[in-house]
């Protein structure tokens, strides 16, 4: 509950800035912000008051590929030029997809085409309701998911496709974002670590995504992450 007393509200804003509020309180604050100019101003003032403390964090160089990841994750990002290694493993999928019926056979083919052993790679093929392969999903070492459509098709007007992840044991899927019309994307999964057995789903949703935080439309495609590089 966001306090109503002005003094308590201001300290609540300070605790939001400090970072000591729990996830539920933070969600409340962020839901209230668009309609609460007073709370916005209080938070901004605290951000400014405490900003000199930012100097206490020692600067550290980020991983060299971080800008490329950011650029690929921006809305409407241009397709990344595939690096040769990636092309080598994607191409068999494309060919296989045309006459596919057995996902397991495809996974085996993938292993054969991989030239050098690398850390276990998590991947899956999302299938349609009629078990037709539709998307290749791969988790990279940074914990992101990369998606590539095997047979891009136009979505009907006024609909969106939303990506979801359901880790083993979880009771509700977590949204991983909307899928752009280009049909290829990299998503950062935030706190959700891709792991073997995690279900990946794509549902049909209204524009802007599910209003409830759960899939509301039909599940169009589904697959389960599997270790593909394990030997």
């Amino acid at each position, binding site marked *: 509950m966001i306090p109503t007393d002005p003094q308590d509200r*201001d*300290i609540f804003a*300070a*605790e939001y*800035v*400090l*970072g*000591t509020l*729990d*996830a539920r309180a*933070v969600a409340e604050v962020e839901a209230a912000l668009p309609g609460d100019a007073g709370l916005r101003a209080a938070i*901004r003032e605290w*951000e*400014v*008051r*405490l*900003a*000199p*403390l*930012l*100097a*206490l*964090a*020692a*600067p*550290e*160089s*980020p*991983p060299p590929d*971080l*800008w490329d*990841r*950011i*650029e690929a*994750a*921006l809305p409407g990002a241009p397709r990344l030029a595939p690096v040769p290694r990636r092309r080598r493993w994607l191409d068999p999928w494309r060919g296989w997809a045309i006459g596919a019926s057995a996902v397991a056979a495809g996974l085996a083919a993938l292993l054969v085409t991989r030239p050098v052993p690398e850390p276990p790679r998590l991947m899956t093929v999302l299938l349609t309701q009629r078990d037709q392969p539709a998307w290749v999903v791969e988790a990279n070492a*940074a*914990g*992101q998911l990369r998606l590539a459509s095997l047979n891009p098709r136009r979505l009907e007007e006024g609909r969106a496709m939303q990506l979801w992840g359901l880790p083993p044991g979880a009771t509700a899927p977590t949204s991983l974002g909307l899928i752009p019309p280009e049909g290829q994307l990299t998503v*950062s999964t*935030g*706190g*959700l670590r891709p792991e073997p057995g995690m279900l990946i789903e794509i549902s049909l949703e209204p524009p802007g995504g599910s209003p409830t935080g759960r899939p509301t439309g039909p599940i169009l495609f589904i697959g389960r992450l599997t270790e593909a590089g394990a030997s």
Partner: protein
Amino acid sequence: MRAESPAAALLVEVARGDRGALRALYQQQATRLFGIAQSILRDREAAADAVQDAFLRISQRAAQFDPARGEAGAWLGAVARHAALDLARKRGRELPTDDPALGDIAVAPEALEHVAASAEGRRLRDCLSALDEKNRKGILLAFVHGLSHAQVAARLDLPLGTVKAWIRRGLLQLRECLT
């Protein structure tokens, strides 16, 4: 070089949808913002996720930056901190807080000298110095390392309720001191 443009000017261009300006902002700020995220997450992969999320937020929210109400560096730092804090909360703050050296730098007496690079920083340093030592440490550990009330309590060996009340009192005193 655009990377040498002031961050505030770059933010104006980012708000117009200029991706080159976002890139220049990244080149200029990434090391500082990654350090801020890494202080909270203490995991380079997670910090990279947080900085990625921060730059997506910056690209979406650049228009909300108002140079009349604070510096661009402070605004960018706040976006990065909240991205890192959100990630820490999603992970249930399962972070290595048992590192005995954690936070020593942030709460060392000389650390506050880093804060005093600007006039605002000197005032904040003076006001922080006036707080009880445990109040000050609690606030610094929460801000710099993203520690929760419970983690601050464990670290300072104080009851949880005491820590909550002390941090609130410390914040109140800071606000009065800075006014």
